[in-house]
């Protein structure tokens, strides 16, 4: 396990580490922020982050420095930073640990980001269920304020940086950045259509950066040790740094593991995770949270970085790896996820709203052994009509379990349908006029 050097989880894995400001400072905490406050130009910080190759850890993997550079520099009036701590992707639980166990690491990253983009106010939009995280962050903010890292005139720079924790009310879609902003504004959590992008029209229509917790936690380290150091870790040039992966499912040692990008799934599952729980063979795994298409044992040697996974037909996503052993019904697995997506579809746009209900009902029917062979093409047709036609990326996410399980395990669907057809034979269909 000591094979890879940890960055983000390093502090908290020290025995007795509580995450207090004092302890964080003892490990070199807030040094990066001090350095920045000593007069680093925002453009230099952005350049450093760009050079480090850091990409967003929330799911989409957008280069962080580039995102920051979109914020208009001379914009009069407020700009905002929002830390996306909604962590609602099933199978993902890394941000929770970062916030609960080492909150100042996140706060320092946020403070530096605020300094860089010129934001005086930042919000942490935290998943409603993370009550402990919210409490810990609140305490940490109070500590940091007292120590002069936050509040007015931070570290004598004359700048004001205030961070507020805002608890969500339990909607998956509020992890989508524009829905998050809507929710933060007190509105219904629904995605906005883009453009305009949050960089120019974000929170309260003001320039806004939305970054994931893990992304922000990386910032102090990059500034401390330099872009070159970070860019050398992992799978450069496109997958730099480490990544916290959340292992769950039929695995011996579920949990969060920080490894450099580019480690293979085989190593992750069999070495780091200790292999399959019941030593049955691996049947399938989801590589990056519920929105990422399923992969098969054939893909075990795929490297865990953005590009390799994209080539394998899936995505690195949020870093949640769910492992399934031989004997798991893939129709059931797809249905389980589809039920989740149906429940969470916000209802804003037609294909996602109506499509998720249609897909889930059809899958439930197949799974009840009441399906028909024609349902399979219908499912794929529906998926095709949802993908790329929705306001946000939820559309792509919700079809991925069906499309990917159908790609790899279509026979399991057919098996259930054959059973259905045997039990309830197809009657003579009434011919449609055009077919006579």
């Amino acid at each position, binding site marked *: 396990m000591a094979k890879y050097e940890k960055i983000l989880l390093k502090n908290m894995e020290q025995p007795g580490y509580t995450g207090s400001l004092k302890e964080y400072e003892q490990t070199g905490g807030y040094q990066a922020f001090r350095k920045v406050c000593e007069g680093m130009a925002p453009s230099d910080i952005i350049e450093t982050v760009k050079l480090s190759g850091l990409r967003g850890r929330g799911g989409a993997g957008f280069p962080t420095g580039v995102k920051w550079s979109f914020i208009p520099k001379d914009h009069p009036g407020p700009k905002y930073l929002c830390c996306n701590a909604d962590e609602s992707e099933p199978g993902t639980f890394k941000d929770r640990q970062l916030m609960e166990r080492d909150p100042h690491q996140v706060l320092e990253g946020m403070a530096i980001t605020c300094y860089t983009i010129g934001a005086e106010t930042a919000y942490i939009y935290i998943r409603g269920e993370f009550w402990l995280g919210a409490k810990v962050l609140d305490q940490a903010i109070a500590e940091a304020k007292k120590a002069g890292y936050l509040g007015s005139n931070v570290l004598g720079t004359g700048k004001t940086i205030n961070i507020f924790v805002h608890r969500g009310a339990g909607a998956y879609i509020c992890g989508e950045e524009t829905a998050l902003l809507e929710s933060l504004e007190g509105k219904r959590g629904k995605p906005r259509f883009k453009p305009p992008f949050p960089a120019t029209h974000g929170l309260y229509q003001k320039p806004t950066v939305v970054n994931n917790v893990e992304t922000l936690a990386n910032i102090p380290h990059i500034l401390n040790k330099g872009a070159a150091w970070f860019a050398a870790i992992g799978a450069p040039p496109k997958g730099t740094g480490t990544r916290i992966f959340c292992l769950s499912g039929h695995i011996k040692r579920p949990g969060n593991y920080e490894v450099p990008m580019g480690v293979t799934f085989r190593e992750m599952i069999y070495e780091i995770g200790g292999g399959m729980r019941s030593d049955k063979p691996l049947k399938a795994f989801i590589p990056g949270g519920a929105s990422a298409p399923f992969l098969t044992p054939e893909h075990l040697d795929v490297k865990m970085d953005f590009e390799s996974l994209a080539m394998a037909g899936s995505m690195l996503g949020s870093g949640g790896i769910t492992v399934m052993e031989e004997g798991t019904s893939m129709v059931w697995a797809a249905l389980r996820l589809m039920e989740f997506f149906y429940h*969470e*579809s916000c209802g*804003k*746009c037609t294909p996602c709203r*109506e499509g998720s209900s249609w897909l889930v009902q059809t899958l439930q029917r197949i799974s009840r052994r009441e399906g028909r062979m024609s349902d399979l093409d219908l499912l794929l047709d529906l998926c095709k009509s949802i993908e*790329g*036609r929705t306001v946000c990326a939820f559309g792509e996410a919700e079809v991925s379990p069906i499309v990917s399980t159908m790609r790899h395990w279509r026979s399991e669907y057919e098996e259930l349908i054959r059973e259905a057809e045997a039990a309830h034979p197809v009657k003579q269909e009434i011919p*449609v006029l055009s077919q006579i």
Partner: protein
Amino acid sequence: MSEHTTTGMVTVTIDDVTASVPKGTLVIEAARQLGVMIPHFCYHPKLAPDANCRMCLVEIEKMPRLQTSCSTQVTEGMVVRSSVPTVKQARKSVLDFILANHPLDCPVCDQGGRCDLQDFSHEYTASGTKFVELKRVFQKEYFSPVIETQMNRCVQCLRCVRYCDEVMDVRALAPAGRGTLTKIKSFGVHELDCEFCGGCVQICPVGAITSRLSMYEFRPWMLKRTESTCGYCGDGCQMTFQAKDNDLIEVNSTLGVGRNNGDLCSRGYFGYHANVHEDRLQSPMIRCDGELVEVPWEEALAVVAEKLTAIKSANGADAIGGLIASRCTNEDLYLFQKFMRVVIGTNQLDSSARYGHMNGIHALQRVQGTHRWSMSFDDLLSANAILTVGTNLTETNPITALKVKEAVKRRGAELITVEALEPAIGTISNIALLSTHHLPLAPDQFASGTIGLLKAVIQENLVDAELVAHAKDYIDAIKKQVDAISWTDIEARTGLTAEIFQDSAKVFTRAERAVILVGQGVLRSQGGYGMTLNLMDLLVLTGKLNRIGCGLAPLAEENNDQGSVEMGAVSELLPGGKDCRSREAQQSLEAAWGCSLPSGEEGTLMDMLGKAKRGILKAMIIVGENPIGSLPPDSGIEDAIGKLEFLVCQELFLTDTAKRADVIFPACSYAEKDGTFTSTEGHTQAVRKAIEPLGESRPDWEILSALSVMMDHPLEYESVKAIGKEMRDLMPGTRTLGPSPLPPRPCLDTLTQYLQEGYQDTLATRYCLPGMKATHTFVLNVGQSIFHSGKFSTRAKGLIQIQSQGVLSMHPEDAERLGLACGDGVCLENQLGQVKTTVKLSDRIPCGVLFFPEHFDQDIQRLFAVSVDNDTHVPYFKCAHVEVSKAS
């Protein structure tokens, strides 16, 4: 976001047609201009794009995936394809999705036949759906007395929610629930409580939100459409009557038509039933042995002609007076005044414009020499600063209020509100919430607020430099007046410090285009004429009177108040707004009419009532007006009417006044006749006959014309068009239908005259603070409710279902102090009497103020004293000071 920037054009190709459109145009709009109809549900030109229905997807070259044309702006060289197979397939799939849960209950859906979903389904999904699962079914829920929802039909385009928020600024609706279980709901656990503008019904592309007033009564193709003009307030909204079997079924409005541009208010949308109420008078009646009995037209006309002729020969023409409602058409008004002046031969005539609108007109005439606004509705939209004084705009002139909302919300205008309103969030919109500078006042202190603004202008040296050079005496005179009034006195009356007046005055002065809206709170209140003149002074002092895009706009409460003035249906004005004492005007009119004009003195409403009381005025012809209902008992109206020897009424209903008549002619409503109304901005618009006259009722002009024939002084016209022609010949510019005429420019000679000496005679009376109420008393104000207009609307079943009675509104803090709760009985008392009523709490009205809607309980009128304006003869009776106690 939907405004189009017109800086530069771009070339765009849509379905192989190339054209130039303004940069920033949305693809869907550009397509429409090119004749390509892109199907859509959620897009609406009035609303910011939401791109939720995904029906308008198109293929755009160089863009990945299909794009929503409702949210994409055209760029130079853009190539759009809207009829390629991928696009068609996408549309079909969106429809498949929508139809999955749509109930297909078209046979019982009121939208059937004019439903976007039906039309698009017909076009794109010829075959059936592949959906074999269970449809989602919502339980039917009661929504409101006038609006019906059927959420199973909803396509979740959220147009209703967005309209309610973006256009109306009401926010009564919201989506509740998630995914397919989303429903449009009102807030709270009670039924919908909002402005009931009907906008959600009209903007719904399917049958999810419909009107309960016409539920199951029609199929769209059975309806006969008639374009007409609304008969409630002076905003002059264009609307369409939909009639079936000589009955009014519903009212619509159309995007792009009229100043209202598709919007209506509750009165316009749900108030049409007043026209066809079952109590309508349907045949002439004469009084026989104290009872009113129905008689044929010939008999009733003969009785009136004979009686009027007799009175005229015995007591002279000035023994007969006439009064007409401003709800009548211009043609009715014109013929009425001609009848009075020519057939009767008297100047004893007036209209209901006297109740307040005349104050605005006289002020305009005095200072700028016009009898119309010198600005237009469009100037409201492009104003940089808007000052409203005593308007209660959202309730009295809801469509004007929409323009103000748009100016503020979309165009960033600064809004100064001097209103008897608190900025409280409520079930109806509140203009005070949008204002940048809000000056809440008691309704009897608008004069103090106005003087505060003027004092700030003088004190802060905001006076226009050019004016300083030309009109030093005028400025000095006003300075002398305002200097004599201390900020302490103003603060004591308004509760506002000098600062807010100074800030407001600066905002107003700084604005390139500044507009003043003057409402009933000023025009109908004590000293209304003086206050309006003072506000004109504000325009003059800040150098805005003669500037394009600036002006003062008195808002008319009744639909044709402005028409009454322009048609000369008031004592002191001849047609065309000309002074009746001007020899020149008299001569030109005499030449046109071929007869001489009466030489007797003028007689306004209050003059006539005084003369009636003294037995000098013997007979009155009252057309559509109900002075007993309008004036408080203190005016002695009952006595005056009771002393008349002979009273003729032309009426729709047996009103309190008509009950006293000796002869009643049944008139028909504006839905049953042709003609024109002139809106508050001076735009003459067509009124068209939607249904045949009920029973034997006739248009007012026909009745007057018939009477003139019987009185041997025939004013005969073939049709209403012939009257229109005479009017047009006499007054160029009148009855030009179509786009509204350019507003008149202020007459510089009049202005010069005003600056030299015209301002002097009234100066001392109008630059004077009103008295203060005793601390333990309340200011009781009667005024207009958003759901009603006069007494007429109380016959509309839709509006009565929304608001059926008047209750007294009181601020919760006052109520708490008096130990009152919502629904408690209260006793109001002053020197004029004691009245019991019910109280309701509203944080919309200021502390120390009580509000009662003027449409209902007549009893409360007993508390109001009447005073008459020396200059304009307007009777004031809207405010009283009362003591309040809990009723035992």
